[in-house]
């Protein structure tokens, strides 16, 4: 992944922090309070354009779009964190084992991994959801399985390259066991890149979850997810454009913030260059 040059663009880093911070803040606040209830129907004011009373307007049931967006943030971030935790933990474990131990372990794991990779993530997720029925748990499981192969791939290649470094060989010469070398030398040096991967993964998961919800196979209505809000807004594309703009903008802002953040991480965590 490319990084920004050090001389330019600290703006992106700042923006990244701001956006992600805003997101987390929203999630925190939404736990306790939203301007209106996200499910609160108000048939007196359907499809109202943005105003002081409703900053993002209302939908066809008179529900406040801002409140629904905030609640949607909570759901998306929740699913994002859960999926990233599962996928990174499992993927890092498998990737490290495959990359460090090599031999048969590596070959078996990678063949299975490649087979899983052959399914476009979305499809795998759909397949899992079809079998395990909907709900947040199923979505987390489906997305974790969908992204697991990519995580394993990346972690394995990171571990492979670290493994070749001489300080790992030095550890072996010293008489350290494979387990110790892995934990003491390989893992700490792989952490930065895994952290960057985790950040990127979070963005992809949020995007995938909204896509799934948009298609109707993710979070079911009436629970608000940015994706299903967008789907519901389709009939009103021409007449009530704010219904389309708001949730999409939320997804985009999240993704932008996460991407800029991970770029910053990448730059910051790159080990000091040789003299």
């Amino acid at each position, binding site marked *: 992944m490319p990084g920004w040059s050090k001389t330019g663009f600290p703006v992106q880093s700042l923006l990244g922090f701001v956006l992600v911070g805003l997101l987390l803040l929203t999630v925190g606040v939404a736990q306790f309070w939203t301007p209106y209830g996200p499910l609160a129907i108000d048939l007196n004011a359907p499809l109202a354009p943005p105003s002081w009373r409703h900053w993002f307007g209302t939908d066809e049931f008179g529900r406040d779009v801002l409140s629904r967006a905030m609640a949607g943030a909570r759901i998306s971030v929740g699913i994002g964190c859960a999926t990233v935790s599962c996928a990174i933990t499992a993927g890092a474990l498998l990737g490290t084992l495959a990359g460090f131990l090599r031999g048969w372990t590596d070959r078996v794991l990678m063949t299975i991994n490649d087979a899983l990779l052959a399914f476009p993530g979305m499809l795998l997720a759909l397949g899992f959801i079809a079998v395990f029925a909907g709900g947040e748990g199923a979505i987390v499981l489906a997305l974790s399985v969908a992204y697991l192969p990519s995580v394993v791939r990346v972690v394995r290649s990171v571990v492979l390259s670290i493994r070749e470094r001489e300080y790992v*060989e030095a550890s072996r010469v*010293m*008489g350290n066991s494979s387990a110790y070398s892995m934990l003491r*030398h390989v893992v*700490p040096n792989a952490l930065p890149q895994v952290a960057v991967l985790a950040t990127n993964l979070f963005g992809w998961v949020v995007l995938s979850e909204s896509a799934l919800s948009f298609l109707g196979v993710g979070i079911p209505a009436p629970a608000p997810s940015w994706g299903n809000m967008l789907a519901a807004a389709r009939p009103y594309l021409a007449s009530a454009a704010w219904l389309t703009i708001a949730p999409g903008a939320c997804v985009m802002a999240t993704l932008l913030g996460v991407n800029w953040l991970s770029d910053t991480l990448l730059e910051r965590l790159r*080990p000091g260059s040789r003299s």
Partner: protein
Amino acid sequence: MSAAPVLVMDRVSLEAPGAGLARPVLQDFSLLLERGELIALVGESGSGKSMAARAILQLLPPGVRQCGGRILFAGTDLAVLPPAQLRAVRGAQIGLVMQEPMVSLNPAMTIYRQLEEGLRLHRELSPGERYTACHEMLARVGIPDPPRCLSAFPHEFSGGQRQRIMLASVMLLRPKLLIADEPTTALDTLNQREVLDLIVALAREAGVAVMLITHNLALVGRYAQRVVVLEKGRIVETGAARAVLESPQHEYTRTLVASLPRRAPPRDRFSAPTRELLTVTDLRVKAPQRKDAAHSTVWAVDGVSLKVRPAEILAVVGGSGSGKTTLGRAILGLIPRAAGEIELEGIDPLTTDRRQRAAFRRATQLIFQDPYASLDPRMRVLDIVGEPLRHVRELTTGERRSRAEEMLEEVGLRGLAARFPRELSGGQRQRVAIARAVVARPKFVVADEPVSALDATIQSQVLALFRRLQRQYGFASLFITHELGVVEQIADRVIVMQRGRIVEEGAVAAVFDHPQAAYTRELLEATPTIPVVSSSTQVCVDVD
């Protein structure tokens, strides 16, 4: 023809604008180069010598700019030339050969396409003529089977061959000036000699002026007519090569000359006990399949037997591909062997007995060549040095810590205990590596070219440190190197390897004074030495 100098650099200054003040890279650099002359530009890393070369071609890296002086090539100021004319000068008038043969050729293009590119740009030749020119040039630089070479890709050739191909590519265009920036630093001794001889011969044939940039003062003595010595961006001394080397005026030049490994009086030998510490019998190790050999196995180590006694330093010399590195790794059990026996105090490194293996590991250590890669960048220096002590059960944690601290002090790095490797210089990192190797009092240390990557002045310091510690702690060592000068400084006995076999062995003085094998003789001849400074004898070094 006109006697105008080919290159005139008049008080050239380069700076690298940093945060705030600009950092001077080169200051008031002046130089005159006549037609057909060979001048050497000498300095250590950071002296600015490479930047001077790039400045001539107007190819400075993005962070550096010229802030003073003029560069006149055949009378023309290169800095004011429009881009199209500058491009006409590059390649056709000034040629550049650089250090790393492994990356100086485009890996995705065939050799022919790369060679003819320059011809197509600068000369009017038909495709057939171009092909013939390339073919002839390749033959001239000593590449066997030029047609096959032309249709092949760079990765199919070794370092020495690639450097010759580079030379061919540059000389094809018959430039007036050839800039060679450390052209042989990455090559082994024999290849070094051949490539440099080739450069000199080609230059003489075509009447080309050569600017040889190097950190190796010994090469200067052999090849250059004049020399310019650079320290931290400033010229500290200049003059005829022989004169400067025999009687250096400036203190820095004197340090450089003094740090050259030279034939020293024989080391004081101790009476070693007759029992052996390490015995290797008929060792064979396969080479990982690189080239498609004639269907027979390629052996990296082909039937090597040797013995090392306690507290003895055995040097292993040879060119690239001789198998010396593989030998070291195989002895430590880091790579599998196809045949033969290895025994250190009765233990085979590949034994299945866990406790014996652990004992083997405790008794052996390895020092790597690359000081940048052998230390874990995420660990502090003190932890790095103390890591091997994990396996010394008798010590408590506190004792381990103090032992590590003592070790750091012994290598002269007290006060750097809390630093990370990236904050240290190459020489300092290598000291850390040595400290790590010695801290657990091993009996046998394999040192794999530990000083090859260091500047000359640092090299001698690190070697002295190694020698001192070896005397103090009495460990035996297998010292792998391709530089004979280093062998002289360090070793008791030496074995010479060529293509996986030992061609000669014996005490260092004996082998160097009376070499039996042809290969040993070649190596000795190829090692550039400088005249021994002595009032009565002036040893003439053939420079022209």
